[in-house]
């Protein structure tokens, strides 16, 4: 068993909608794997298949070496799940919900009850500033999310499936969450983090898979992905630059106050810099793409029409 999660050519349809259309995803043990995609791209469907709640139409799915549909109960002893849209039983208090889920994870037996990590639970309640005595019906979205997070993070699961776990948290709590995830990985646990909060992914994730319309469009470490995409260059030269437009891989050239700015594909970087130096370089600033730019590059054609002020050409 080399991978914590291995998904190949996964297809899931709902009626005529193809929610997953040949998805590939591989998560190695011990890594924090970012699972990025806009709303409706198939992240939650993937996670629900991993949980055995949905049945795959075709493709292979392996979770901790088992079949998530067939071996659901056994596998669930080793995983913890935090949903993005947390619904709780309205008349149970937050503390009761956390304990219940922890005890259910423990297998329900007498031994299971003792395996609940009370110290960790109380510590997390403290750190995330949750009042566990309130009935769930009175919790805000953020507080419901905290309940699910505490239930998930206080477990000793070897794999954490986190589906947009911070969408309702304030920045302070989000940083607490990030600490908790880093602590979990320090303990050698594996995390699949579905998110569209890019700063969070950038900070936490070793590798990232970007999913679009049910298909993985890119996967790798952030460095690898940066290499695959454009670098933003801002340059000032002694003589006016000519012929830049004709270089393959140079995009969006603008001239502004003596500076020439453009984006360049990684493959064309070397040639472009050579070309520029012939005009007498005075200053050159190069910026690697942020994750946001990576992301937007994959979704730019969808976002551009909806986001007029962002003048970014579609790839």
């Amino acid at each position: 068993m080399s991978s914590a999660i291995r998904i190949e050519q996964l297809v899931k349809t709902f009626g005529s909608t193809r929610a997953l259309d040949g998805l590939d995803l591989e998560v190695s043990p011990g890594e924090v794997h970012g699972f990025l995609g806009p709303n409706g791209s198939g992240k939650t469907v993937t996670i629900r298949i991993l949980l055995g709640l949905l049945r795959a139409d075709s493709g292979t799915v392996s979770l901790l070496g088992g079949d998530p549909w067939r071996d659901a109960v056994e596998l669930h002893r080793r995983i913890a799940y935090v949903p993005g849209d947390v619904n709780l039983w309205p008349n149970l208090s937050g503390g009761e919900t956390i304990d219940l889920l922890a005890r259910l994870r423990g297998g329900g037996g007498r031994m299971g009850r003792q395996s609940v990590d009370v110290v960790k639970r109380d510590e997390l309640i403290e750190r995330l500033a949750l009042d566990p005595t309130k009935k769930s019906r009175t919790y805000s979205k953020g507080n419901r999310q905290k309940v699910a997070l505490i239930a998930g993070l206080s477990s000793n699961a070897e794999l954490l499936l986190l589906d947009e776990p911070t969408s309702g948290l304030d920045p302070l709590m989000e940083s607490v969450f990030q600490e908790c995830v880093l602590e979990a990985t320090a303990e050698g646990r594996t995390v699949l983090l579905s998110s569209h909060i890019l700063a969070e992914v950038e900070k936490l994730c070793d590798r990232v898979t970007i999913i679009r319309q049910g298909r993985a469009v890119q996967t790798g470490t952030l460095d690898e992905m940066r290499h695959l995409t454009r670098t933003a260059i801002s340059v000032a030269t002694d003589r006016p630059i000519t012929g830049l437009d004709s270089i393959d891989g140079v995009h969006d050239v603008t001239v502004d106050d003596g500076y020439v700015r453009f984006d360049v594909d990684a493959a064309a970087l070397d040639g472009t810099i050579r070309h520029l130096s012939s005009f007498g370089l005075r200053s050159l600033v190069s910026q690697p793409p942020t994750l946001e730019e990576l992301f937007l590059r994959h979704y730019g054609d969808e976002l551009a029409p909806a986001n007029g002020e962002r003048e970014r050409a579609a790839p």
Partner: protein
Amino acid sequence: MTGLTIDVLPGATAVQASHVDPPSGASFTGTRRLVWLVLRRDRFRIAMWAFGLVGLMAVSASSIVALYKTQDQLEGYARTVRGNSALIIQAGPGYGLDDPTLGAVVMNETAQWLFIAAAVMSMFMVVRHTRTEEETERAELVRAAPVGRHAALASAMIGALVVNAAIAAGNVVALLAFGLPAAGSFAFGASMIGVGMVFAGVAAVTAQIASGSRAALAMAGLVIGVAFVLRAIGDVGNGVLSWASPIGWAQSIRPYAAERWWVLVVPVAATMVLAVVARALQDHRDYGSGLVAQRGGRPEAPASLSSSLGLAVRLQRGSLIGWTVGLGSLAFFYGLVADQAEQMIEDNPDMADFFAQLGVASVTDAFLSTAMLIMALFATGFTVSSVLRLRSEEVSGRVDPVLATPVGRRRWAWSHLAVALVGTVVLTFVCGLAMGAGAALVLGELSRIAELTAAGLVMVPAMWLLAGVTLLVYGLLPRWSLAAWALVAWVFVAAMFGILLDLPQWLLNLSPFQHVPALPAAAMSWPPLAILTVIAAALFAVGLAALDRRDIAGT
């Protein structure tokens, strides 16, 4: 809704310095649009209720018209019914049966049930569009729009009025179509709207008081139950208590029996008062919570909350207690009037013949077995709603974190089913015991307690079978889960109206209750109970197998 606005007049002096009153009626801004939203969202439910209630009236009226062709036949019916306490409890005082007309007979057979149905429908509708809505985040979206504070309440009430009026209109058309007099038909329509709207008002008030939507429904449901009992006691007695009951008001309009139109003032006034009270109470509560504050919970789960069964028990405990107390009280009450049944034989020789033909030894036994059947039909409401918890847990997404633990689907499903099945036993046991206690008290026969407890418990296999059908629908066609209620409605109609409607025997036999020995009137018989149980078990097996194979719905 001008009837609801009591705004401070401009220039009134008692206004606090910092407090500026909004323009008159501003708190109702947006009501009209919300009424459309209410009707739009409920269109299928409304269609179901309208279909059911108008259809029930139409088939009842048609069969009565076909059954009672001569004045002699009408007189015969009246003699059987009049002054019979046991029947009066169920049907009302029988206005107009002194000089019976078709209209009076139709009313006696149908009106009570339609009144209760209108009350229940209105209660659900108002609570759904007020407190239930506030428990989702949808209502916040609405409230954040330029929509007044009281608009949701007003739109729920107006929506209830529209629906009640539409269903009443359908009933009027049905009655007119069978050639019944116009005055009585319209009077019945008006009385239905009256009873529906009073309970819409009751629900509007409980929605402000209760700590949550379920509690609001429970409180309003209790009021409906009390109204039924007050009316029943009043009708059997001197009639005074009936005036304390909105259902009593509705029947006192006396359709087809020298209509008393002025009585309509009572439900109209009561509805207005309730609406004004609800509005005033709403100003004293916070959005999303009731006047009764939500109690704090425990910081840690008790030991009982350690398994999916523990969770199911915790989630359904309140509902089971409510059903048990409510139905247990009703059963006790039925037991208390058991001695009245014997009386009608003495008063009415026709009845004696009637029962002799049926081959029933004791009228009291016949009455008690019918009463127990009614209790079981009501209790089936618990059984089915308890099984349907599976569906509500699923569509709310609350099942996901449970199934993400090492709790398998079957174990999770069995947890709720166990509560449904055991709860059914508890409920019928308590009903039987309570009815037996009541009967023992008035008849002076202690043996009645054991006898009627058994009469309650024999209903269990039939109710389990209906639980099995519900589970089967849930497992195979989860989107159609609510259709299980249609089944409950069918079983009810088959049992209560089967003879009246002259339904073919094979159709009646589809109801499991048809096969239950009608203790204490009939002798005990084990084979049908065993067969019902086996069928129920098979349905459970297929339903669970289907659940194992399908997707769990997301939110």
